[in-house]
């Protein structure tokens, strides 16, 4: 750690990991409910568990992004954070608001929550991923503004590198597009249309800028490759991501009431969406190949390089298999979508946040890296998590194929109903639950690596003062 104020990243990272564990727990509940329909009913109905699962994901990823920003911006700008105090205040505001929201989901029926938080004044609740009460949304906007102010002031004072400029653009975009979550017209199609401006333009737009800049930062630090080289690749990759991703939004506008030309635009542009992910993979591996130093933190490098592979598979390959309109006609809203969602989110965003935590956490604790013994456990946990997530994805894909073949493709009268199809898929759901448990084991191994790191602290390379 070169700058004192980088330390504010610590609570953000710790809270992110905590929420990650919560997300996994609720994932297991959901996986069980897919098999035993009345599991935990009526205490935790499926919709509540799912809401908690997905909202925790978003909240912890954002928390990880903020932590990553607080960690890397002082180092990139070469000056202390504008106000570490503000970062701490915002952390508590964010953590308390987030926790209260989750408690709200779990303790009262959703309709009651809507009523007590005054949803009728400005209705924004009850839309997928945007279930947060309106006051929570307002809170998110306030935290985001404070955060952007803090980071923006730091960048204005310090060195402006490509990495921190791209990062701040991504964060700014994240905040701007979130504003569309306050727009909820009574026309369903219009509502859905602009709902995607939050969801798609986040995950296939501005979040990729954040992903790219964090990845570029880790690669510069661990490989010692010339900044110029990394930066031009960063520009090119995110440029390609925007070129394909912006009009690629069209692949969500096939069957929700929007005009039919979106069938063309969505298919054509999302067909080239795997390209930036492919380039990212090639980029990461060629940088590692050209490395000029051996960084002791092998675990962080494993996270970063594995991230590009899994992102390419999840966002690139699994996105492509159901993105063309004629295919999507049959797969839209099936378990195929769930398969793609799981691998893409894990590969692109979960892994990059875990990569930066893996890189930054030892440094925040005064070490170059964790001890070799701790890294061994951590790298094993990466393998377990990646393989389990691949298994979940393959099984959900199989579930989706069954669903499409039984429920969608056959003619009316021959096709079986939704619930009957789900009954057919139960064996696959069992296997998926097992894979989910394996993933949980991976998460615990990851946590165990922190314990090992603490115990073997003396074997870890110390951080040179002002290195």
């Amino acid at each position, binding site marked *: 750690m070169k700058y004192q104020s980088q330390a504010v990243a610590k609570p953000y990272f710790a809270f992110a990991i905590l929420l990650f564990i919560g997300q996994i727990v609720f994932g297991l509940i959901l996986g069980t409910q897919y098999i035993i329909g009345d599991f935990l*009913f009526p205490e935790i109905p*499926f919709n509540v568990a799912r809401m908690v699962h997905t909202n925790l994901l978003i909240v912890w990823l954002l928390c990880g992004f903020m932590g990553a920003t607080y960690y890397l911006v002082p180092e990139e700008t070469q000056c202390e954070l504008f106000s570490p105090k503000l970062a701490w205040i915002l952390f508590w505001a964010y953590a308390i608001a987030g926790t209260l929201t989750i408690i709200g989901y779990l303790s009262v029926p*959703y*309709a009651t929550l809507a009523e007590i938080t005054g949803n009728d004044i400005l209705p924004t609740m009850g839309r997928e991923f945007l279930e947060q009460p309106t006051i929570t949304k307002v809170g998110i906007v306030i935290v985001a503004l404070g955060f952007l102010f803090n980071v923006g002031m730091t960048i204005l004072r310090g060195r402006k590198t490509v990495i921190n400029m791209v990062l701040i653009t991504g964060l700014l975009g994240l905040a701007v597009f979130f504003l569309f979550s306050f727009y909820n017209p*009574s026309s369903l199609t219009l509502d859905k249309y602009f709902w995607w401006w939050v969801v798609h333009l986040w995950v296939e737009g501005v979040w990729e800028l954040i992903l790219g800049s964090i990845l570029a930062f880790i690669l510069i630090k661990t490989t010692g490759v010339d900044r110029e080289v990394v930066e031009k690749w960063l520009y090119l990759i995110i440029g390609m991501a925007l070129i394909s991703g912006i009009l690629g939004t069209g692949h969500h506008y096939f069957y929700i009431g929007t005009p039919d030309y979106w069938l063309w635009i969505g298919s054509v542009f999302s067909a080239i969406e795997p390209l930036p992910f492919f380039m990212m993979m090639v980029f990461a591996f060629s940088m590692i190949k050209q490395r000029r130093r051996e960084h002791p933190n092998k675990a962080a490098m494993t996270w970063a390089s594995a991230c590009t592979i899994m992102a390419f598979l999840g966002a690139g390959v699994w996105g492509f298999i159901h993105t063309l309109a004629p295919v999507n006609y049959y797969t839209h809203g099936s378990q195929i979508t769930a398969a793609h969602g799981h691998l893409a989110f894990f590969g692109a965003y979960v892994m990059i946040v875990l990569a930066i935590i893996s890189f930054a956490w030892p440094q925040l604790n005064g070490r170059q890296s964790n001890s070799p013994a701790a890294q061994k456990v951590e790298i094993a946990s990466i393998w377990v998590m990646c393989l389990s997530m691949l298994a979940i994805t393959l099984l959900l894909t199989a579930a989706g194929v069954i669903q499409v073949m039984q429920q969608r493709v056959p003619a009316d009268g021959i096709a079986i109903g939704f619930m009957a199809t789900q009954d057919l898929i139960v064996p696959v759901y069992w296997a998926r639950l097992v894979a989910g448990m394996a993933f949980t084991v991976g998460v615990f191994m990851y946590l165990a690596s922190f314990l090992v790191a603490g115990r073997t602290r003396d074997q870890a390379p110390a951080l040179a003062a002002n290195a």
Partner: protein
Amino acid sequence: MSERFTKGMARNIYYGGGAFFFLLFVALTFDTVTVLPKRENRDQLTAQVAHGKALWEENNCIGCHTLLGEGAYFAPELGNVFKRRGMENEAVFKAYFSAWLKAMPTGVEGRRQMPQFHLNDEELNDLAEFLIWTSRINTNDWPPGIEG
């Protein structure tokens, strides 16, 4: 010799390409928004339909069901439930719909359960109106079959 792959060009592609495609997206959005009223029959979007949509949201129906293919995949698609369960007859559908919601949860052991939402008759009617209106949106012929 000049550089073959320059940061300047990569930056121009990022800013130029990003702006170019975002502008195209805005232009297409403008066109979409102008033709949507016809495709979704906005003239039939009554106060009841709007109230139904609010009820749909306040009870987080999207947490289990899909609507026009978006949502959770735990319970059936409801974008065409008016056709599937109401045979496109409003009176039949409303009778079926309110009986169904009042009978929830079924309590059959091991089966997926739908919570009891305690909606009154007016609310049930408006929610049904919303689903009826939704089923008439021009969705480019989706879903492929009646089973959704």
